[in-house]
C-alpha cells in the first residue's frame, strides 16, 4: 500500500530528474537567463531564446482569463444562486461534459469555426492570439465554473437569509456576503483554470499559427511553450532536443508554482474558517 503511494512520488521524481538531467547541458551552455529571456527562438540556428514563446503563452493566458474567468464565475453564480433547481440539475452535467471534451476536438472546432471568423474580422490568416484565447476561454470555463460553484454552494444558507433579512437585494447579498465567503474557492478555481490554459497543447497548436514571434496583432501568428514542444519533438535532435527539455523543465516549475499558490489559498481559507 505504502509502495503504491510512493509510486506517485517516484513518478514525479523520475520526471523531474529525467527532464532536468536532459535539459542541463543546454541550460548551462546557453545560460538559464539567456535561455528564458533570449528574444529569438530559432533552434535550427542555435538560437534558444524562450521569451517569444513565454510572451505567446502569456498573451493566450491573459486573453483566456479576461474572457473565461468572469464568464466562468458568473455561470457559477447563476447555477448556485439564480438557477431554478430543475434547470440546474440539467446544466451541471452539461458543464461537466464540456470539461470532458478532448482538447483535439476543441482544436478542430477552433480550426474550422473560429479561425475563419477571426480571419474575416481582423484580416491576415486568422491564426493567432485571438483564436487561441477564444478557444482557451471555452476550455477553462467549465473548470472555473464547477470549482467556483462548489465553493459558492458551500456557503451556509444562513448567510444568505441574513443578508436578505437585513433588507439587501438578492444581488447585494450575493455580492457582499456570498461571493466574499467563497472567495478563496473562486481564486482556487481561477488558479486551476490558469494551469489548464498554460498546459493546453493540441487545441492551441491547431489555431495559433505557430510562428515563434512576439504577439503583435490579432490575426498574426504566435507560438506558445507547450505547442512548440509538440511541434518540435518529432524531429529535434542535439541541442534543440535538450532545449525542448528545458521548456519542459520551465513548465514543470510553473506547475509547481501554481500548486504552491493553490495550497496557499487553501491554507488561508482554513485560517479564515477558524477565525469565523
Amino acid at each position, binding site marked *: 500500500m505504502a*509502495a*503504491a503511494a510512493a509510486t506517485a512520488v517516484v513518478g514525479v521524481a523520475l520526471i523531474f530528474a529525467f527532464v532536468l538531467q536532459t535539459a542541463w547541458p543546454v541550460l548551462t551552455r546557453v545560460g538559464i537567463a539567456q535561455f528564458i529571456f533570449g528574444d529569438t527562438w530559432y533552434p535550427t540556428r542555435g538560437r534558444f531564446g524562450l521569451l517569444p514563446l513565454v510572451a505567446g503563452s502569456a498573451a493566450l493566458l491573459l486573453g483566456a482569463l479576461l474572457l473565461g474567468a468572469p464568464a466562468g464565475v458568473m455561470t457559477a453564480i447563476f447555477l448556485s444562486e439564480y438557477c431554478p433547481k430543475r434547470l440546474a440539475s440539467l446544466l451541471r452535467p452539461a458543464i461537466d461534459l464540456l470539461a470532458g471534451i478532448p482538447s483535439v476536438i476543441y482544436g478542430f472546432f477552433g480550426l474550422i469555426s473560429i479561425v475563419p471568423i477571426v480571419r474575416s474580422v481582423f484580416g491576415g490568416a486568422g491564426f493567432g492570439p485571438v483564436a487561441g484565447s477564444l478557444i482557451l476561454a471555452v476550455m477553462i470555463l467549465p473548470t472555473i465554473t464547477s470549482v467556483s460553484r462548489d465553493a459558492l454552494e458551500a456557503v451556509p444558507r444562513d448567510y444568505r437569509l441574513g443578508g436578505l433579512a437585513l433588507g439587501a437585494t438578492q444581488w447585494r447579498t450575493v455580492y457582499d456576503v456570498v461571493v466574499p465567503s467563497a472567495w478563496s474557492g473562486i481564486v482556487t478555481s481561477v488558479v486551476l483554470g490558469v494551469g489548464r490554459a498554460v498546459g493546453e497543447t493540441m487545441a492551441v497548436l491547431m489555431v495559433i499559427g505557430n510562428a515563434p514571434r512576439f504577439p503583435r496583432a490579432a490575426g498574426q501568428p504566435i507560438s506558445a511553450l507547450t505547442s512548440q*514542444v509538440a511541434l518540435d519533438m518529432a524531429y529535434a535532435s542535439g541541442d534543440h532536443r535538450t532545449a525542448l527539455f528545458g521548456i519542459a523543465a520551465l513548465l514543470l516549475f510553473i506547475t509547481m508554482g501554481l500548486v504552491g499558490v493553490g495550497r496557499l489559498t487553501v491554507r488561508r481559507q482554513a485560517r479564515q474558517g477558524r477565525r469565523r
Partner: protein
Amino acid sequence: MTRRVADWTARAAAWAVAGASIAVLLVIIGQIVIRGLPGFRLSFLVTAPHGIKMEGGVFPMIVASSFLTLLTLLIVGPVGIGAAVYLAEFAGDNRLTRLVRFAADTLAGVPSIVFGLFGLAFFVYFLQMGYSILAGALTLSMMVLPTMLRVSEEAIRAVPASYREGSLGLGATRWQTTLRVVLPAAMPAMATALILSVGRAFGETAAVLYTAGMTPSTPLLPLEGGRTLTVHLYLLATTGYIDPAYRVALVLLAVILSFNLLAGWLMARFRRRFVA
C-alpha cells in the same frame, strides 16, 4: 429604485452569461453532430482506413484507443487504489503522505505534452519500448494517477466510520475491515474514479502522439504501436480530410458522453446509499 435596477441587471447578466456558456457547448456539439452524422455508416466503425487518402473507417483506431485505455486502467487502477487505501486508512499525517499529496498535486498539474516528451525519451527510447501501446499506457498512467488517487481517497473517506467500528467491534482485523467492508462500500465511487481517469486517457492526444505512435494498423500486443482516435482526428484535420474528421469527432464525443453518463449514474447510486 437604483438598487432594484442593479438587482435586476445582475440577474439578467447571470442568465445571459450562463446562457452564452451553454450556447457555446450546444454550438460545438451541434456542429459536430450536424456535420458528422449525415453519411455516417456503421461500416465506419468496423472497417480500416485504406488507400493513400485515408478513406474507409476507424476500426484500428477504436481498437488502439480501447487497448491503450484498458492497459492504462490495469496499471493505474491497482496503484491508485492501493495508494488511496494507504492514505485514507493506514497512514496518518506523516511525512510520506504529505509528500505523496504534494507529488500528486504536482503531477495533476503537469501539462500533458511534458508527459508526452518524457514518455518519448524515457519509455520509447531509453527503455527501448518503441512506439507502442505499452509506452503510451505507462505515460498515460502517470498522467491520470492523481485523479485516480484523489477520487478513490475521497470515496474511501466517505464510507461512514460506523462501518469500520462495526467491523472492528465484531473482532475483524484492520486489514479485513478494509478489504471486506470499506473497499466494497467505496466501490461505486472508485468505479467513478476509474471512469473519470479512463475518460481523460481516452481523450488525450499530446501524451500519446509520440509514445503510442500513429501507425494505423490494429494493435494486438502491448508492444505494438497504434493510432488513437484523437491522433487520427488531429491528422485528418491537419491533412485536410474534414468530413471524416467530423465523423471521428462524433465517435469521440459519443464515447466521452457515455463515460460521463456512466460516471454520473454510479455516483448517484453511491450518494443514495450513504446520504439517504
